[in-house]
């Protein structure tokens, strides 16, 4: 796959279709892979990687990149194309300046899950017939591939590319996913249990703002959380109110626009399941205002930008379920 992508990138650079490429390169560790921009064939040969750890969604980088001179080639996984479509719909990217090559998604791995098995000092990881051969400074270890799959890929919603100029490999389909299972489980708890669950999770928050910075839907140039007048620009959430407020407002600001790409949870250094908040909004929107998948197309109105005269009243929240 990596070979085919490098060749495609070189070809498009050579024939002048694009003048740069956004992809991924190795970071400090083998599993620590970061988005990067390549301008020459030599750079591509030297640094370009695509493997089980290239989980980062590069769509958000295109907000800035697509406003620069010349076209940029972006390799997008199916979930990333939803984000790009949503950004196109909101006029946040210049789609004409982007050449999208769709690549198959395939489950990505979560290095934290490997480390949780007590495997440390990782220097190399190979996938052989769905068994991971992990080279470490303490010798080689193995573990089943499926035990290391990231949560976001384990509940994949779609393998279909919703926008592309060209595809490498086959296009997939929208999947039946179990992504609302955990939301439902929480909904069935009592209010006290839910409160305890979220206090335990949200109190871990260090307000690094990584969830906001990585989110392809959070593209405001001036963010409410950076405004010193707002009283919430503190870098560390200093009490339970701020933790609650930051996460409620963060999720609310992307409600109806979140494509459920799962980046927020992936980058969280404290492993807070932030996607559950987004999924709760998606689930509510689906059940109250009709099925809606953000980023599926570039024309339909977002649920919070629209209304019908016979929408349910807010009291529906008070009426349903037991406390």
């Amino acid at each position: 796959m990596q070979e085919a992508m490098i060749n495609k990138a070189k070809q498009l650079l050579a024939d002048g279709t694009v003048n740069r490429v956004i992809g991924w390169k190795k970071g400090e560790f083998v599993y620590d892979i970061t988005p990067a921009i390549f301008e020459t064939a030599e750079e591509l040969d030297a640094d370009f990687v695509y493997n089980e750890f290239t989980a980062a969604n590069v769509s958000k980088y295109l907000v800035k990149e697509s406003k620069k001179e010349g076209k940029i080639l972006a390799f997008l996984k199916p979930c990333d194309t939803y984000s790009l479509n949503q950004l196109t719909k909101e006029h946040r990217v210049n789609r004409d300046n982007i050449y999208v090559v769709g690549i198959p998604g395939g489950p990505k791995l979560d290095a934290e899950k490997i480390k949780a098995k007590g495997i440390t000092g990782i220097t190399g990881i190979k996938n052989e017939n769905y068994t991971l051969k992990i080279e470490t400074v303490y010798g080689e270890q193995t573990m089943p591939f499926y035990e290391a799959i990231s949560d976001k890929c384990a509940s994949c919603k779609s393998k279909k590319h919703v926008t592309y100029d060209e595809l490498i490999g086959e296009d997939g389909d929208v999947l039946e996913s179990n992504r609302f299972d955990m939301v439902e489980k929480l909904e069935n708890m009592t209010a006290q249990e839910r409160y305890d669950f979220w206090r335990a999770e949200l109190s871990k928050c260090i307000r690094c703002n990584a969830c906001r910075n990585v989110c392809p839907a959070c593209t405001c140039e001036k963010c409410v959380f950076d405004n010193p007048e707002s009283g919430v620009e503190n870098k560390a959430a200093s009490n339970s109110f701020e933790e609650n407020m930051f996460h409620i407002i963060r999720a609310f600001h992307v409600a109806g626009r979140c494509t459920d790409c799962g980046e927020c949870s992936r980058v969280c250094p404290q492993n807070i399941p932030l996607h559950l908040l987004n999924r709760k909004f998606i689930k509510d929107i689906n059940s109250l205002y009709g099925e809606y998948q953000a980023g599926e197309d570039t024309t339909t109105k977002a649920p919070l930008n629209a209304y019908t005269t016979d929408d349910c009243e807010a009291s529906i929240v008070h009426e349903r379920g037991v406390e």
Partner: protein
Amino acid sequence: MQVNDNKEFQPLIVAFCCNWCSYAGADLSGTNRLNYPTNVKIIRVPCSCRVNPMFILRAFQRGADGVILCGCHPGDCHYTSGNYFTRRRMTLLFSMLDFLGIERDRTRVEWVSAAEGAKFAATMNEFTEAVKKLGPNRRLEDLRCKKQ
């Protein structure tokens, strides 16, 4: 507001009222000499859809025990459609508060027209009673904002 141990708990209720209907409704209940509790503090907003979810959370932070949002009846919005957007937004916000385990009965949306002074007073009486039963807001309070 002083909370004295010897006295019964008196909740602080913040009511966001839209300028065109509910604020006038509150005014009418006053001129009609209808009683509603002094716990209710009214904040006038141009339209119910002016209320950002942050306003509601902020009210709780600064010591409110209940927040009620009043606007024109659906279809009667002075700006044609503001309250329809409010309705969707607040439904989702209240549902999220509930999801986080924060008591859902501390928040409410009510449509009160300029002619419904009696409804305004009745709503406020009922809402204040409901919040009084729930007791002080603990799950969304900010201790730094409490007066000693």
